[in-house]
């Protein structure tokens, strides 16, 4: 029996399991570039405006930090730049999908059930790779066809499509390796996000600091940017990406051959024979369940905040070093205004991402329920209130801790750069503190769903994605104001740089409190398990 026997059957089975999800994200991601084009045409209608726009972007660290540089001031080049986060979102989706179909199945014992049939050792991994790779290629095709349809250069459009597809492929390869390392799917996802996050930070550093531009070559995230569709059209980088995908899949197969089913390559250690005193109540248990994620997020946020904070001072210098840009900036309100706007928008992003922590912390309640851990906990004298409250604490206070780790680190590196630590910390504090009510609304929404319709808890992530779209792409996609208003983040005052308004803070906090309590009451009244 070949190690690939059964791959085709499992591929069809995987497609069957994802028959709703897969087409949904293929279409959503595949259509983003075409959807971005009209907005860009509106802001920058002619070539002169596009040239100016590109120059502005390339001299505005906030933009280059987030999305890299504009390599070509054509419509296609601007779409490639504006949507440059989207291939990374695709990378996350393919990775999560691949891990779900491999390590998650193995962790819960489904792999064993399948493996006892006529199925080769590598069949499941191969099927998952085939499905995610095919989806990435379809997305690439949609992107290329869409841009050619917009009358953009054919070569550039094909390479833009290839950029999307390669992002899906190469990070599916990374995920395939991650899935071999640990026994738990959560830990495999954690390793993947560290690799992707580090890659993004490398790319960001390379774009902001020309002496460190070699860092771009340390990560596939940098390679994706180096493809430069519509500009240099570097096909050899595409070959590098595809070659890496092939090597990574080969490594994953080799690792899988060297390990036992349900085991990981990384060793598992023996634990303690008795419980420490801290593990005596529901809060102690919640801490054990939540602590690894909290710590990981806090460290990630501190690194991200430190990096973003260190860039603030560079903006002023960049602006003031070029007379053309200085004039342009003066017309827009001067470099102080732009510094404040940069700080506010960076901290706004920290706020959005911190809501992701809040949602996943509350999601632990659901996974405790579906894995029947809650059944055992609640069969003891732990009340539903205290079980839920222990985890809710992480959703509400934990997300503030994560945000604070990022915000304070931001303030410290900013303060160091301007030789005034106190001022740096103080100026940025308003920017991250103001995010808290909006973060709470999203955590509260997750709680509401968990209490009332737990099967739809995934909608909380949809809501977060919607806030991300409103905040980062809303203007470019020309969304109407009522749609932008659905995001709690839209209502926050932009701090620093604008006057503080308390009304939205009170409203959002009130809404968060009400939906959290409604969710909690719903949980008290519903069946569990």
């Amino acid at each position, binding site marked *: 029996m070949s190690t690939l026997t059964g791959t085709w059957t499992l591929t069809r089975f995987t497609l069957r399991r994802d028959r709703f999800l897969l087409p949904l994200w293929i279409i959503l991601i595949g259509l983003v570039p075409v959807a971005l084009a009209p907005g860009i045409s509106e802001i920058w209608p002619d070539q002169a405006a596009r040239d100016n726009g590109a120059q502005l972007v390339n001299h505005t660290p906030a933009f280059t930090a987030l999305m890299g540089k504009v390599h070509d001031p054509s419509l296609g080049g601007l779409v490639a730049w504006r949507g440059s986060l989207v291939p990374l979102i695709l990378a996350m989706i393919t990775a999560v999908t691949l891990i779900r179909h491999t390590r998650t199945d193995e962790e819960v014992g489904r792999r064993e059930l399948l493996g006892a049939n006529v199925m080769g050792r590598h069949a499941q991994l191969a099927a998952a790779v085939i499905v995610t790779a095919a989806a990435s290629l379809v997305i690439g095709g949609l992107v290329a066809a869409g841009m050619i349809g917009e009358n953009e250069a054919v070569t550039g459009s094909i390479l833009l499509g290839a950029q999307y597809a390669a992002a899906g492929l190469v990070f599916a390869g990374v995920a395939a390796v991650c899935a071999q390392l640990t026994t738990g799917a959560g830990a495999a996802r954690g390793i993947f996000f560290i690799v992707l996050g580090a890659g993004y930070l490398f790319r960001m550093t390379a774009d902001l600091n020309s002496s460190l531009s070699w860092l771009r070559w340390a990560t596939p995230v940098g390679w994706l940017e180096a493809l430069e569709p519509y500009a240099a059209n570097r096909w050899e980088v595409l070959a590098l990406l595809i070659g890496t995908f092939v090597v990574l899949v080969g490594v994953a197969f080799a690792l899988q051959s060297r390990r036992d089913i349900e085991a990981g390559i990384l060793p*598992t250690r023996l634990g303690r024979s008795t*419980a420490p005193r801290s593990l005596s109540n529901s809060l102690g248990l919640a801490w054990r369940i939540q602590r690894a994620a909290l710590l990981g997020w806090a460290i990630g946020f501190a690194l991200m905040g430190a990096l973003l904070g260190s860039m603030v001072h560079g903006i002023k210098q960049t602006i003031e070093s070029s007379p053309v840009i200085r004039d342009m900036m003066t017309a827009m309100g001067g470099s102080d205004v732009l510094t404040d706007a940069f700080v506010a928008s960076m901290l706004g992003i920290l706020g959005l991402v911190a809501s992701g922590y809040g949602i996943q912390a509350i999601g632990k309640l659901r996974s405790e329920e579906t*894995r029947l851990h809650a059944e055992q906990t609640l069969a003891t004298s732990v009340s539903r209130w205290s079980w839920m409250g222990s985890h809710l604490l992480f959703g509400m206070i934990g997300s503030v801790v994560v945000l604070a780790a990022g915000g304070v680190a931001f303030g410290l590196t900013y303060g160091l750069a301007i030789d005034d630590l106190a001022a740096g910390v103080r100026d940025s504090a308003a920017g991250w503190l103001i995010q808290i009510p909006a973060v709470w609304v999203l955590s509260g929404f997750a709680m509401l769903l968990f209490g009332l319709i737990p099967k739809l808890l995934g909608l909380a992530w949809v809501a977060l994605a919607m806030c991300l779209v409103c905040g980062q792409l809303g203007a470019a996609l020309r969304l109407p104001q009522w749609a932008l208003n659905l995001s709690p983040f839209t209502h926050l005052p932009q701090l620093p740089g604008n006057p503080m308004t308390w009304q939205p803070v009170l409203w959002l906090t009130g809404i968060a409190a009400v939906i959290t309590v409604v969710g909690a009451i719903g949980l008290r009244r519903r*069946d*569990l*398990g």
Partner: protein
Amino acid sequence: MFTIMEQAITTENLTKRFGPTHALDGLDLAVSTGEVHGFLGPNGAGKSTTIRILLGLLRADSGHVSLLGGDPWHDAVSLHRRLAYVPGDVNLWPSLSGGEVIDLLGRLRGGLDPRRRDSLLERFDLDPRKKGRTYSKGNRQKVALVAALASDVELLLLDEPTAGLDPLMEAVFRECINEERDRGRTVLLSSHILSEVEALCDRVSIIRAGRIVESGTLAQLRHLTRTSIHCEVSGPVDDLAGLPGVHDLEQEGDRIACEVDTAQLNEVLTKLVAAGVTSLVSQPPTLEELFMRHYSDDITGTTS
């Protein structure tokens, strides 16, 4: 406050629906204090649903439940200090060691006896240092059993607790349950392993399709079963087939084989003895037979 209740568990006309399926359909269960009560039924009969209602995890649609004198939905926290539960499908936290889970569950219940914990670990031959994700099914089961048996509680709710245990460990489990009985604890043992129930239980309730179809002591239930008789007689037996309680009669010359309702056994034997018995083999009724009778009714019920 804690008066000695005669009934540890009573349910009256309990119903629970999940969408279109009636998981429980008028369930009346009574478990007396201090007894080991067997809760028998095929898969999907409603055993786990009943136990989850008794734990206050599910809310009954209608009917009345009383557990240790309280309402499991409203008084869950105070009642749970007095009981321990072993689920049929034990899922441990993957990153917690077995020892940590045992201590945690014990502490959440209000404390456990460390000496008893250690002796149970030894008897069940369980390494408490391994992480939850590395235990086999049987070992996960042992973790939950040790946690429950080491707790100082009045009532044990055990949902198919021996499903993953090997025969050696099953013997240890039986010893432990007999000790619990001697200490005056009440045990509700859900199972479909009939030999286990026969060996351990004082009383048995059989559940089918969400209702209790038989309930009583083993002796009472045996009374409802049939004894199989094979014998040879020296003289003629008249009208054996006409007697009430005789089934599947096969008569070939002087050899007779039949199934006799245990209640009618004396009458049938009297007839046979009158004819002169030269050899007799009789097989005692088993719980399995009773169980199979109810179970096969179920099968014919669904096919007709």
